[in-house]
């Protein structure tokens, strides 16, 4: 308790009080430096608290219930510690990166506000994962949305951005209502909303309420996580935030939703009937597949990455769903395996997705664009950024030796284990999921070949890309730390798997140590040795090297316009999966009467996803038209107003008459 407790209080105090106060109090450069250093130390303190929480038994840390009107306390148990570790581990490098980034991108007064919100954003996420009462959780949850929206708006407030932030806020608020509901639904059966009480009460609540809790947790957290079709806000909000914030939003904020879902579905409810799991699986599969398909079609790097977040959340939910299915069929050890897979992927995604967003930030710092069609050849100009970005790409694709692989492998393995549930639907459904995940993985690989190949390799496609120079030291440093972490977990997954196993044993009673976690941890270093060893031997075979201009098929010289672009690279895949996209295309030829000798041809392709058309728009239009109809009731005529009163009275009297 002693030292870690102090570290935890320090962390909260810095993020909640000290850093914002310093930043508001002083506009000086040094104040900003102090504040960012404080935030950095807070992140390190968070790591410390988390590691000790993962290793030791949980202990309550901070109880503010004597201050607040409803119980507000923060505590670190194993699950919390894991997510706290995730947040802190990402915070440290992102903050390092953010120092020069904010300096480069913001004018003087905005910088302070950005840092203030940044600090509060971290605080809110930490409050969410460490909250041990419903009140604290909900407060942190709402705050997290607000502060992140603020961070986006600081970057700029053009009408389009405004619209995107609006959608973000609205969906988050609706999701928060569902989240609130799943806490409150426990109330009739528990005396309060602190987690301990909820946990004990959950055994006594009737089935329909359990289902209601589960479904609202699924929808509420699913909105935050960005499950399709609740993802609408995600590709809008994430790309427009400043890159370090995008990194935090995509890398960390989404994970709080995973945390919430795990907390409810596993910790509180302890699973349920198997259809719980199938719903989650379905959502995961749809999100994963469509997420990656939409990502492939993007050429705005940050939007592309945002869609990949949808995809990865899909993978995480595949693991969670599998775990729920196993729980329903009383197979705790497999449930534990799937849960470990999901949680590990959560952690991995946090690392590589924030690294990717940082990379996008570095690119935009160097070239002032994140449009893939304007990039190219950056690897030679920005070697550190390129290498770290490549590592992140390999990780997100799930290539062996990188961290994404380990979690995907565990997920695959738990799918395969589904075949042991003989005589159930799961026997077939789970193994078939292997195909889905493989397809997702394959498409992701295609997508990141495109991303890295188009952005970093080949020839520069614009003047900006041609004159790009490597970003400042601290930015490189932040990215390097994350890349190293990706590699470390990729090669020595046992580091994280061991604490995850004990975490899974807490969440899933009766689960032993899944053999697979040990076997993968054992084999991966060997594979690394063989692959790297052979490659090095192969490198020795190479003797001389000579620069030679590529033959240009008789033309004077190859130009960057001859290279494959991002759009054309993805064309075959878009062609094959055309049904998933359905773009609105318009081709305009000027002048219109001379189709064969046009002065200009413009081509526009707008993708409005079918959910927008089928799910959201009709609903929004219905609400607004209802409001307009209600508006007509307020006619302006006082006689009608009086009539309303009389009618109200008469109907109440009638009600009274029938009541007696």
């Amino acid at each position, binding site marked *: 308790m002693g030292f870690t407790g102090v570290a935890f209080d320090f962390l909260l105090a810095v993020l909640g009080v000290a850093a914002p106060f310093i930043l508001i109090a002083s506009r000086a450069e040094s104040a900003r430096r102090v504040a960012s250093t404080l935030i950095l130390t807070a992140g390190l303190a968070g790591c410390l608290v988390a590691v000790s929480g993962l290793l030791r038994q949980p202990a309550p840390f901070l109880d503010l219930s004597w201050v607040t009107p409803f119980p507000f306390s923060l505590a670190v148990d194993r699950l919390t510690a894991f997510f706290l570790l995730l947040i802190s581990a990402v915070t440290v490098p992102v903050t390092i990166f953010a120092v020069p980034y904010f300096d480069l991108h913001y004018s003087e007064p905005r910088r302070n506000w950005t840092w203030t919100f940044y600090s509060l954003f971290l605080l809110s996420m930490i409050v969410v994962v460490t909250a041990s009462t419903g009140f604290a959780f909900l407060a942190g949850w709402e705050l997290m949305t607000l502060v992140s929206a603020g961070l986006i708006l600081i970057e700029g407030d053009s009408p389009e951005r405004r619209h995107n932030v609006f959608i973000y806020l609205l969906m988050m608020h609706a999701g928060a*209502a569902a989240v609130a509901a799943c806490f409150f639904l426990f109330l009739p059966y528990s005396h309060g909303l602190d987690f301990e009480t909820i946990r004990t009460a959950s055994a006594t609540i009737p089935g329909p309420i359990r289902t209601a809790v589960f479904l609202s947790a699924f929808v509420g957290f699913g909105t935050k996580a960005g499950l399709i079709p609740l993802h609408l806000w995600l590709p809008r909000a994430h790309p427009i935030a400043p890159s370090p914030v995008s990194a935090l939003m995509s890398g960390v904020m989404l994970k709080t939703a995973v945390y919430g879902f795990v907390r409810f579905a596993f910790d509180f409810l302890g699973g349920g009937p198997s259809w719980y799991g199938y719903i989650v699986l379905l959502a995961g599969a749809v999100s994963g597949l469509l997420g990656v398909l939409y990502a492939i079609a993007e050429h705005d790097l940050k939007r592309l990455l945002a869609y990949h977040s949808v995809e990865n959340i899909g993978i995480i939910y595949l693991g969670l769903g599998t775990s729920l299915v196993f729980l329903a069929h009383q197979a705790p050890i497999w449930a534990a395996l799937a849960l470990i897979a999901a949680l590990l992927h959560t952690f991995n995604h946090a690392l590589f997705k924030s690294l990717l967003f940082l990379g996008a930030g570095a690119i935009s710092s160097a070239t002032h664009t994140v449009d893939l069609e304007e990039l190219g050849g950056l690897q030679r100009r920005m070697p550190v950024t390129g290498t770290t970005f490549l590592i992140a790409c390999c990780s997100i694709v799930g290539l062996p030796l990188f961290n994404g692989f380990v979690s995907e492998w565990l997920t695959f393995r738990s799918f395969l284990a589904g075949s042991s549930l003989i005589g159930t639907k799961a026997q077939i459904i789970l193994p078939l999921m292997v195909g889905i995940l493989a397809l997702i993985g394959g498409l992701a690989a295609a997508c990141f070949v495109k991303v890295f190949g188009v952005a970093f390799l080949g020839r520069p496609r614009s003047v900006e890309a041609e004159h790009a120079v490597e970003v400042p030291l601290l930015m490189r440093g932040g990215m390097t730390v994350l890349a190293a972490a990706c590699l470390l977990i990729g090669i020595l997954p046992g580091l994280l798997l061991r604490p995850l196993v004990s975490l899974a044993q807490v969440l899933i009673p009766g689960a032993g140590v899944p053999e697979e976690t040990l076997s993968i941890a054992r084999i991966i270093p060997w594979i690394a040795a063989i692959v790297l060893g052979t490659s090095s031997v192969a490198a020795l075979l190479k003797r001389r090297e000579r620069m030679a201009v590529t033959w240009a098929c008789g033309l004077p010289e190859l130009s960057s316009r001859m290279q494959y672009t991002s759009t054309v690279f993805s064309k075959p895949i878009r062609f094959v999966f055309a049904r998933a996209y359905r773009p609105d295309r318009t081709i305009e030829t000027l002048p219109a009467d001379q189709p064969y000798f046009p002065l200009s041809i413009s081509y526009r392709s707008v993708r409005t996803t079918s959910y927008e058309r089928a799910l959201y728009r009709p609903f929004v239009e219905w609400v607004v038209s209802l409001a307009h109809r209600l508006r007509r009731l307020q006619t302006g005529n006082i006689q009608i107003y009086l009539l309303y009163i009389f009618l109200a009275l008469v109907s*109440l009297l009638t009600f009274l008459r029938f009541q007696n």
Partner: protein
Amino acid sequence: MLLLLPLAIPILGAGIVLMFRNPRVATRAALLLGGLEIAALGALIWQVHVRGELQAGRYLRADGLSAFFLMGIAFISSLVLVYASGYLRHMGEGRFTSPRWFYALVFIFLFTMISVCLSANLGLLWIMMEGTTLASALLVGFYNTEGAVEAGWKYLIVCTVGIAFALFGTIVLYLAAVKAGLSPDMALDWLSLMNAAPGAALDPHLLKLAFVFVIVGYGTKIGFVPMHSWLPDAHTEAPTPISALLSAVLLNCAMYALMRYDAVVSRAVGPAFPHTLLLIFGVMSMVVAGLLILVQRNLKRMMAYSSIEHMGIIAIGLGLGGPLGLFGALLHTFNHSVAKSLLFFSAGNIRHSLGTLRIDGINGMSRTLPQTSAALLVGSLAITGLPPFSLFISEFAILSEAFTQQRYLVVIPFLIVLSVVFGGFAYHLFGMLCGDPVRHPENARLIPSEYIVMGIAAFCLLLFGARIPYFFGLLLQEAMAVLR
């Protein structure tokens, strides 16, 4: 004496203020008198806290519930008076449109509202409720423009009709009390009614009938849908300090009156009937007003609808009853007052600086009017029930109670409307705060009085979001104790 002082000061004050023709002097006098009044109210509240209950004669009494609402009145009206002192600097000198008339009417208005809270007798309470309408009607029509006259007339007529039904309800209650053997003098005394209630001596049929009329009557004043029609007009057309007073104090006073009746009827015939009515009106108000917020074009009108929505929330809290429901409802009356007055203050500044309140006519405020924008933002975040502001707490309490009682029919619209309202506010606010400013404000800087008042309100919202101050909590407990 202590009970009479807060009543005497505003009545005398109205006369005194009228004597000063010089606007500056009138303003100073009004502020001085306002200060005195606040002090008197403070002393009264303290005495109620110490002694539990104060009685003066047969008709005046102050208990915990009165003290709680008086505190709200004192707090908000002090803010409003200070704000008005700055606000009126723009006002021209008409025949009745001058600061001294303004303050005189405000004092009369305050008098009626304070006496509503101090009435021991439900008949007197009715008289004073009607008095609030009369006192504020002129304030609503203060500017004497087309809109103001129209709004004033509608306000006067609609509320008078509504209040007439409340009178009928009061008479029915009186009838029930007299039939139950209470002496005619004490038959409308709230305390004796409460004492008589549990014995079931009061005819339940009559009580229900009375409650139906009262809820329609005072509901008109509160702004329950569908009797709310006057409310958006009056709030929009009144001078902004008056809008704040109407929304933040008057509606609460009407709610206070309804609470008194609700307590009696609940005790006599059981809470099922009155609470069902409250829930119905609460949900209806929330839903309709929540949706209408989406399609408003005038800032103040939008805020008026938001007031209706929040009265719905309070009604739901009352209708749920239970410790948390009541706690939430009472807390929400206060929180809503603070947030709404902050919003109206910023609306007033916008009107002065930009000359318009049309939502689509305002752009880029965050650049041109940073302080006002901040106030507007804080107020809106608070009013939509987001942490760390105080309305989150009260809504949290009410929702907890609703879920505890498993009232899913209340909960579902409640949660949906909260999202819709949030959407409405966010949508309108984005348009106003962001973007490039189209018109440039004339006097962008706030004067200290405005600055301070809005700062206090915002601080109060934040403070109550984190912690309910000790003394306030005590008063709240005492108010709850009165009702149960």
